[in-house]
């Protein structure tokens, strides 16, 4: 197998997806098949080839250090699931910042 159920569970944790057990099994099977298909990129001899990260040949695109109008904070907070005192209210955070 290219990818196991445990690996899928690990990846789901990394990606913050609370997958159910039946989903883990189902996805593991499907992903195994898909990985098998996409892994064929390895067949291509490409040791000396530079990877393409951008297909547009631009460099040095900058903006001047100028202030532009911000959103009204009311607009920024408008879509918030919860807000308090002008801030986004979020559930308790477990981990210290990285």
């Amino acid at each position: 197998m290219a990818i196991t159920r445990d690996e899928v569970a690990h990846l789901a944790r990394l990606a913050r997806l609370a997958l159910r057990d039946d989903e883990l099994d189902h996805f593991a099977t499907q992903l195994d098949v898909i990985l098998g298909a996409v892994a064929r990129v390895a067949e291509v001899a490409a040791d000396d080839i530079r990877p393409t990260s951008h297909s547009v040949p631009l460099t040095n695109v900058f903006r001047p250090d100028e202030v532009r109008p911000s959103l009204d904070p009311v607009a920024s907070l408008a879509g918030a699931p919860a807000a308090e005192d002008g801030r986004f209210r979020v559930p308790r955070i477990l981990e210290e910042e990285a």
Partner: protein
Amino acid sequence: MTDLTRLTAAETARVVRDGEASAVDVAQAHLDRIAAVDERVHAFLHVDIEGALGAARAVDERRAAGDDLGPLAGVPLALKDVFTMAGVPTTCGSKILEGWRPPYDATVTRRLKDAGLVILGKTNMDEFAMGSSTENSAYGPTRNPWDLDRIPGGSGGGSSASLAAFMAPLAIGTDTGGSIRQPAAVTGTVGAKPTYGGVSRYGLVALASSLDQAGPCARNVLDAALLHEVIAGHDPFDSTSIDRPVPEVVAAARRGDVQGMRVGVVREFAGEGYQAGVQQRFTEAVELISSLGADVVEVSCPHFDYALAAYYLILPSECSSNLARFDAMRYGLRVGDDGTRSAEEVMSLTREAGFGDEVKRRIILGTYALSSGYYDAYYGQAQKVRTLITDDFTKAFETCDVLVSPTTPTTAFRIGERVDDPLAMYLADLCTIPSNLSGGAAMSVPCGLAPEDGLPVGLQVMAPALADDRMYRLAAAFEAAHTEAHGPILDGAPAL
């Protein structure tokens, strides 16, 4: 009284400009049409009646004041629900954004508004643009106006269906692996993916940042070209936006001749998996092109055989990162916040509830492909294959002005047919993906109905980056000749 919904976009604009009908009348006619048929087609997720009529009124007022109206002022348009539109629901076909009203317009949205286009509403799509059938929408599929039991293509099935059902003369889509072109092919309409960087991505909710591109959809090539010129052009809010003049696609579409154009047929886009009727119509199209005076040759792009594999590594990788922001903290769905759970738990529960299966699959695949230890073999290697594919194009374009192929290997398949087989679904993108990987321009134009099922077939025309005009030139000339010989393709669509 002319049926205002049967006009081309160019004709509609003229009618409004010349005062034969008001923009409000035109808008209303299309809103009526939507009300009459969209329950069956389900192209629209949100119809913005007030906004559309307001925009139409504004055009009428400007006309009354003697202002210069642009070439598409007063023309109704359907906007794929992946573009932000201030104050209007934008869902990207997902439950995780249900009800979200953005506080800002995408650059494309703003340019459409500034040009006087009347945005009728937001169209249905595969969730976060992942799919080839619009069956991955969290709000139910869109149906192909040619056969309501069949898919309209994806991810932009809503946009193309709205055109094919005459609910709008113009639409905007996005194309990451074929999401404009493939729906165009299976609905008998026209759809173009401009050169990457040709149209701003600011406000286009990202799927795969290095592949996504916004583009015009219409019922004929000239209309698509007119729309292309409205939305294209440099945007300082998008660092990947090309800072060069927009290729003269309208002039190219009007040019009418392809004498001496060197047209390459890509050998790798044929064979197993291609429906016989699709191959037949494609072959006939090539013959027609040849008869118009173009020089047709065969070319080989050997690495195209790896395009699907490279794409389904690059896209999930980028999207796993792009979709991380949907975490219930700042906007969108929040699930499981009962006062005892942690932020991490609420994030995970929300994403589990708010994302569909295809989205979850690609996020996991992408997380895997970027993982330490796997990056080089998967993502890294895929980006190298991408270079080789781009090189194949470059080499082909040394001897050809444009390349052609079928747009997609089959006609519209049935709803439900491929939904449980992701790989089978991915095969719909076989011909379209290479242009996204290279960043070149590509479009689909109808080339007939397949004999075995009477369903539309699309011809794909590909041009080098920045040479969008070439593909419009060929597509328009072909369309004119094909229509002359066979009549307009949509005349063959069943009445709804």
